[in-house]
């Protein structure tokens, strides 16, 4: 029997009738056509499907769409605003943080969760936070650099208005 769900994805409200066994990642990709969220291992190991569910990094291949009823979801498509890249997206571009790019949306969503809690993470903090995201191109070094670059960018923009006033 289908169940009705109401979710807010990247600021837009949606209501659908879904089968209880529909995974959240398939709801996002196949129903909403938000294909930036990838399916990698499909066993909650690789992190390619990471999104934010009520602000928390979540592997949505291991969540049912019905569990997300009433929740706020952010996907990689929801990170940029008015055509301006999120500092993490800019950083991955600047620091060559991607090769094939398959893991990138998940990497960025997990890193965004980290930067919300820890605005100046050490290299160890970053590597620990990204434990649940695999890069099969093994480009971890530049991924870590990208997160450091984004953290600096975000803290610079946070102090910039005060400097302008002075």
């Amino acid at each position, binding site marked *: 029997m289908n169940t009705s769900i109401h979710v807010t994805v990247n600021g837009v409200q949606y209501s659908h009738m879904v089968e209880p*066994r529909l*995974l959240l990642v398939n709801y996002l990709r196949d129903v909403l056509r938000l294909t930036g969220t990838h399916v990698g291992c*499909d066993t909650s*190991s690789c992190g390619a499907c990471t999104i934010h569910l009520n602000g928390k*990094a*979540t592997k949505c291949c291991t969540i049912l769409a*019905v569990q997300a009823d009433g929740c706020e979801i952010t996907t990689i498509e929801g990170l940029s605003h008015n055509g301006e890249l999120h500092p993490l997206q800019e950083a991955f571009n600047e620091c060559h943080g991607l090769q094939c790019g398959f893991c990138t949306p998940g990497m960025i969503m997990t890193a965004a969760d980290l930067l919300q809690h820890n605005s100046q993470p050490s290299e160890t903090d970053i590597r620990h936070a990204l*434990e649940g995201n695999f890069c099969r191109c093994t480009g971890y070094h530049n991924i870590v650099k990208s997160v450091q670059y984004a953290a600096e960018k975000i803290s610079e923009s946070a102090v910039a208005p005060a400097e302008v006033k002075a």
Partner: protein
Amino acid sequence: MIPAAFEYEKVTTVDEAIAALSNDDTKILAGGHSLIPAMKLRLSRPAKLVDIGGIAALKDLKEEDGEIVIGAAATHADIMYHNLIRTHLPFFTEGASMIGDVQVRNHGTIGGSLAHADPAADWPALVLAADATIEVRGSDGSRRIKATDFFTGLFTTRLGPNEIITAVRIPKPADGAKSTYQKFPQPASRFALVGCAVIRFADGSTNIAFTGVAENAFRDSGAEQALAGKPVNEEHITAAVNAALQNVDVLGDHYASIPYRTHLAKVFLRKALWAVK
């Protein structure tokens, strides 16, 4: 991979959950981070899921009558970041931070982990060492099961088919207790190839529990007795390590042979005991 079809019911109270469990072949869905992977692989094929994710009362974490009470649906991250836990049960904070990864910690729950009773899960060793009691409720009311009686074998516990875990109750350790959780994680899954939880009390008693070593997590009474009332030093640590794992059927698999896992467990017990010295 998509699970086989099932019926779904979202409940808002524990009583509703228990009523729903009276149907055969119904399973509780909390964080889903053990159950959904098992369902995707058809290792589990319940006819119905009862989603308890909406029961706010099960997420409570509080101090009550000298005990720390953790609601069954508290996530690993909820526990890891909670000040009460950091203050009174620092090895729970340490252990929670080693479970899976950030995303898994955000959804997996302590109650789910205990009910699932994976032989390599972290919480079983921690609740055993902390002398916790598991509070469960069924159609006949509530009862409390000592953690030391709870785990009965591979993925099996004393939880009845129509019962649900509601909370984990841990006696607040007296001042001066030192605790640690030392773990050798399987590099991909982060489950424990060996995990050792130790709490040393100011009165000279020590609780020692292992996970990942046998079919279920267990307290190592041999090692505990070797240290009882003795100072934690090289001599007595070695005595405890030598006394550990007696009459334990150590698991061997393609990750770790029996001799290797036995060796690892003793190395991690030694590390843990030095950490509480």
